[in-house]
């Protein structure tokens, strides 16, 4: 694919993204837009691990939590601005992900998913019940509140636009990264691991190294998202940041839109998040139940009819059309993108 052309969609996204705050003036709607972008960002971060590399980490919310608490503690106790704090948070999360990745790298499929959730739950239990970790006050069940300084240097903007543009920027960055990965050798190895880990190993791919890399990148971005998330709320709470809801949502949106594609996570979030936000206004107290219902039904339908997600299935159809093309590399690439074990 022509290297310049493929950046057009991202540019379009950027343009549209910049226009949105002109249309949505009310803070509440702008906040909803921020959520949409944030979930797109998180789903894309998850995609690197779960989509490209096929490591179904259902507990990646762990890194949202780590990112959140690291940034929070650095700001509240040490006065480190979240601008710096979020980078540190990302690095810490990345490191932890590699520490975790090492022993679990042998685990496959469901075992890996379960281990990842178990870890996240352990963190949730600890952070929710202990008010101090290693002597630093983290708030326990009450959560930790940020000191309000209103200073943009502390990532506290007056009005929502600041946060909006920050998250938009992060989304663009992660998409550019994902795109880079997809078209690089690393991405090629990721796909190999996704398709068949053992086969890749026997072909000489250093599976451990690439799994750890995938872990690191995914965790790094996810954690930064966590840091920004709690900074917009000025509040961090273990049940939320280490909770199943966020963790599951990341995965759900990615799968819905099409894991292992660049735009799948974006589309998944784009469809589902406004629904949830809209229900909040429309359904009142039934909102939680209705949005869960819609998530559940959507997931069931996708698994029944389009298990590769929206984009994944669309890609499948176009690949089958292009099957007649003579370029063997393209066909192989398309087959790998359409999911392992396909009968192409």
């Amino acid at each position, binding site marked *: 694919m022509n290297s310049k052309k493929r950046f057009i969609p991202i540019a379009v996204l950027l343009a549209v993204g910049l226009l949105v705050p002109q249309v949505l003036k009310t803070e509440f709607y702008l906040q909803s837009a921020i959520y949409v972008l944030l979930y797109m960002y998180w789903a894309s971060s998850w995609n690197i691990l779960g989509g490209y590399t096929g490591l179904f980490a259902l507990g990646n919310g762990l890194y949202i939590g780590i990112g959140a608490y690291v940034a929070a503690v650095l700001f509240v106790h040490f006065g480190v601005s979240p601008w710096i704090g979020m980078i540190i948070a990302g690095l810490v999360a990345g490191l932890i992900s590699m520490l975790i990745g090492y022993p679990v790298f042998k685990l496959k499929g469901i075992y890996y998913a379960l281990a990842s959730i178990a870890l996240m739950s352990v963190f949730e239990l600890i952070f929710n019940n202990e008010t101090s970790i290693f002597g630093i006050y983290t708030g326990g069940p009450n959560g930790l509140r940020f000191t309000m300084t209103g200073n943009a240097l502390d990532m506290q903007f007056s009005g929502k636009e600041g946060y909006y543009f920050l998250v938009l920027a992060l989304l663009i960055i992660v998409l550019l990264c994902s795109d880079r990965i997809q078209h690089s050798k690393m991405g090629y190895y990721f796909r190999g691991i996704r398709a068949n880990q053992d086969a890749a190993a026997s072909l000489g791919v250093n599976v451990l190294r690439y799994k750890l890399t995938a872990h690191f990148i995914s965790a790094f971005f996810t954690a930064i998202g966590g840091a920004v998330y709690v900074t917009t709320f000025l509040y961090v709470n273990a049940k939320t940041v280490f909770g199943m809801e966020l963790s599951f949502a990341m995965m759900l949106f990615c799968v819905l839109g099409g894991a292992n594609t660049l735009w799948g996570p974006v589309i998944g979030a784009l469809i589902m998040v406004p629904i949830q936000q809209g229900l909040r206004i429309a359904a*009142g107290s039934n909102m939680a139940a209705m949005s869960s219902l819609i998530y559940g039904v959507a997931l069931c339908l996708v698994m029944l009819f389009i298990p590769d997600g929206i984009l994944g299935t669309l890609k499948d159809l176009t690949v089958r059309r292009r099957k007649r093309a003579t370029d063997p590399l393209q066909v192989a690439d398309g087959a790998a993108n359409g999911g392992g074990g396909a009968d192409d």
Partner: protein
Amino acid sequence: MKKLLALMLALVMVLSLAACGKGDGDTTEASGDTVKIGVLLPLSGSTASPGGYQLEGIQLAVDYINDNGGIASMGGAKLELVTSDTTGDVETGMTEIERLITVEKVSALIGPYNSTVGAATSPIAIQYGVPYIITNAVADNIMQNGANKYVYRVNYGASDMTPFRGMVVDYLGNLTEAGKFEKIAIIYDAGDWGTSENESFKEVAKEIGAEVVVSEAINTDSSDLSSVVNKIKSSGADVVFAGIFLNDAILFTQQMKEYNCDVQIVGSGAGYADSKWLEALGNTAENVMGTSDFNPSFGLTNDDAAALYETYLEEHDNETMPLETSNGWCGMATLAMAIEAAGSADREDIADAMYNLELDGDSLPLWFSMFEGVKFNTEGDELGRYNQNELLGDTAGQILKQVQNGEWQLVWPLENATAEIIFGK
């Protein structure tokens, strides 16, 4: 293909977000003759029961005011409630308060019952400059946002309860063989409120020289408390104080009976003060004690209040008004007085009126509460709390009840007791 997709993506995104943006009118805070009040309460989830009670109190107050001429200084303007369900969850609460402020454009806010939600939402009200009456939500940190004129609390805070606690514990302690409590156990809900309960009881224990042998946090809506019951049983505690919500209160009482643990239970508001608790337990509840506030046997402020209370009792099968309802009423009544004083639906005017508000004696409105009046501590108190109501009275309206023969009886303060306490020797 990619280009088309990208274009579609862009269109969908703008359209869907713009669709949300519809109804983004620029109406002012009061349209004609109504004053919009935003209500934040848990109407579903683990604290839905007390949330419902609190909403009822607020609604009753609004109905009463509207039926009696509305806001006179605004030519009889009516109060209008805009409710939103926080589900007891912090992030939902934060999103909802923003929606109420920026989309519904309410003139003032009232709520949110849950301490954690209160702590998270009070800075937001200050940020947007919207007057916010905190109802229940007793954690002290809610009022520790520094000097401001937007966040107020009419009912007691956690620390205001401690002196009362001291009195109750002293009184009960005197009834034991040893003349005071040697060992006490505390179980509390693992959240802001529960944690402050725990701190409060620990402090009381220190004052009377008792040892805290069990201090255990309970996850809301636990399914099995047998481990805690077991611990309490082996700890040799003389009494267990329980700051937990309805479902856990039911479960805990049941399991104490099942495991034959006869340590006296003294519930602290919340779950134990809920009439559903007694309904669920029947006989098992016998002799359990609980603290609460607002009991009409103390006497209501005037004849109108008494008459209204009679109607309330008729409609509620003679169930005493729960503390959440009375706190809701008081919060709303206070807010209404401020709006009356301000004579406008403007947020700043109402905030200023609240800041200078003083209600006691004759100027007290129809009032279902034991609080003596309203005056907010705008200079801050020793705990760094701002705008906490100082006219709470000695016992902050607290009472101690006990289940006897399947019914709640007031056993303390003694001068208002309806029955004698069954405890100790």
